[in-house]
């Protein structure tokens, strides 16, 4: 069977459907975190896949299509935020209260109070992180990307990704422990 990138480059609709099924949920979550709005995330995700189809010839030479897609998504989120003042605020280095737990986590509507509390606490904690830390936490924990792929996506050394992640976890631990105590 052909590689996914070759099928994508040929314009095989089933290959694009496969790619959507593999990545859409993770990309959408990342966009929600960056833009602070599920509606904006919907629009941007659609725009990304349209751009991907239009530039499909380039995909034949792409080694890691997931990293490429996240890179595109990041660029598109930045472009979108530059056009939308509300989203731009979310992309500022610190954006308290801009992330709603119900937009990020299923547990926000869970029956048990402990899960709901955890979802709200983590959403608040993420809001308090610097943007570059928040982004790495989301890419690693919720999008399932390794540090090496994250480094490719962000265009920074892998060591930088690892140190930012550790700093983010320490900051989250501090803020959530303080909140819970």
């Amino acid at each position, binding site marked *: 069977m052909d590689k996914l990138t070759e099928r994508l480059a040929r314009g095989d609709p089933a290959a694009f459907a496969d790619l959507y099924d593999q990545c859409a949920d993770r990309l959408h979550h990342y966009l*929600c975190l960056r833009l602070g709005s*599920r509606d904006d995330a919907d629009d941007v995700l659609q725009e990304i896949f349209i751009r991907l*189809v239009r530039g499909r010839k380039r995909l034949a030479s792409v080694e890691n299509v997931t990293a490429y897609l996240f890179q595109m998504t990041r660029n598109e989120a930045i472009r979108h935020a530059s056009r939308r003042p509300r989203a731009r605020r979310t992309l500022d280095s610190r954006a308290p209260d801009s992330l709603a737990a119900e937009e990020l986590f299923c547990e926000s509507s869970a029956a048990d109070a402990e899960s709901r509390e955890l979802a709200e606490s983590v959403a608040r904690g993420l809001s308090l992180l610097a943007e570059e830390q928040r982004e790495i936490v989301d890419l690693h924990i919720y999008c399932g990307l390794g540090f090496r792929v994250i480094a490719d996506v962000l265009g920074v050394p892998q060591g930088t990704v690892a140190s930012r992640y550790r700093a983010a976890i320490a900051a989250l631990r501090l803020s959530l422990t303080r909140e819970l105590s």
Partner: protein
Amino acid sequence: MTTFDDDALKRLTPRAAPLELRARVLGSMERELPGRMARTIDFALFAVATAGLAASLAFAVWSASDTADRLAQALGPRATPTSIVDISADIARATDPETARELTRSLVAASMPTAHNRSEALQYPPVSSELSVPN
């Protein structure tokens, strides 16, 4: 919750993209893909080719039906071949002038090259009617 660690983050389930978004995105991708464009172009080419073929056929039919008329108008009626005149003369001698004229009409019509023999043959009665029967 009393402590926080990585596992606390991992216990949360990220919300998925809306289900209806899939159809929207796949639909917009399909509109951009070459298969659809090729199908559209194929259909357009087929329509143009069909229209062209129909126009050609119509012109060919019109030409075929009209050529003989226009030739006849331009050049006058076609002369009755000598061989037919000779045969008619022999038949007139053997039978009667009316029978010879009828047979001449039939022979002239049969010698026409198109499917409109009969209608064109009717334009030649002057030739056959002028046929003189030798005494």
